[in-house]
């Protein structure tokens, strides 16, 4: 089997269509499971009371914001370097879902900050760098929207996305590098997590749900982008431009 066959937008289109339900349906089931464990099984936190339950959406959303940004920059870079159209379209498709998750993490963070810190917002290193992440997404989306020629828009977007990657490690390590109001990481790769099993389970299930949801949303949007560009191209071809 030649996998490169699927690197062309036209042949990837039906494949993407077949893949979507395999991500969308498990995403819905896992959202429900995560919510159930998070609210019906996980106990009340002894320090933060029930306010901590915001973690089950806040942390997965924040992770998705960062991960999707890196993925977007990766696809934009590949699309630019190898002139791969499908890869650039993937980057454009990821941007909106990534921006949405970043916005969710900022809003839920404010809603968590008010009762626990007494303030909606502070210009703390982690929050400021996350706000910059949202601006990078918005910049990428509006830059692409402002350029008519799709391939030029892809290249311009790739430069912006790749430069902005530097912000992701800044967000991730901000709670270690600077003395911030934001609490430290709850889960680290090499250490034991600082929360109970049921809380961790709810958090990881919600993260999986957000991942699956993102893949489904990105594939649906990718199909729209493929069709839109194809229609534009055929229109140009018809008039002989």
């Amino acid at each position, binding site marked *: 089997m030649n996998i490169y066959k699927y690197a062309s937008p036209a042949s990837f289109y039906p494949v993407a269509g077949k893949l979507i339900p395999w991500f969308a349906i498990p995403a819905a089931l896992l959202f429900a499971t995560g919510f159930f464990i998070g609210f019906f099984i996980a106990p009340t936190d002894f320090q933060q009371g029930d306010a901590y339950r915001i973690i089950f959406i806040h942390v997965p959303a924040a992770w998705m914001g960062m991960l999707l940004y890196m993925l977007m920059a990766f696809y934009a870079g590949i699309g630019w370097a190898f002139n791969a159209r499908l890869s650039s379209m993937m980057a454009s498709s990821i941007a909106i879902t990534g921006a949405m998750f970043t916005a969710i993490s900022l809003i839920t963070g404010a*809603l*968590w900050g008010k009762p626990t810190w007494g303030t909606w917002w502070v210009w703390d290193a982690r929050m400021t760098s996350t706000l910059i992440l949202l601006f990078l997404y918005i910049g990428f989306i509006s830059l692409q929207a402002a350029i008519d020629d799709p391939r030029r828009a892809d290249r311009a977007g790739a430069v912006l996305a790749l430069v902005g990657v530097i912000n992701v490690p800044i967000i991730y390590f901000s709670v270690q590098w600077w003395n911030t109001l934001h609490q430290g990481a709850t889960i680290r790769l090499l250490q034991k997590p600082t929360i109970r099993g049921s809380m961790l389970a709810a958090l990881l299930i919600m993260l999986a749900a957000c991942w699956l949801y993102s893949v489904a949303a990105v594939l649906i949007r990718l*199909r729209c982008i493929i069709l839109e560009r194809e229609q534009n191209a055929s229109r140009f071809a018809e008039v002989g431009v």
Partner: protein
Amino acid sequence: MNWPDLSMGGYGFYVWGSYLVSLIAIVWEVVSLRQRKKALTQQQQSSKSVSAPVLRGSINETTS
């Protein structure tokens, strides 16, 4: 299993507010994706019959 205290120990506004905002964001994305897809299929159907010749005609008029 235990039923959650709906007032969330006084944090109800913040906890439910967070989930409501997230739900609204996701529903917004799903709805806007559906509309985008719908607009495309409608465009595709109409371009087969009407819009393509119209476009060709209008360009010819301006260039000739």
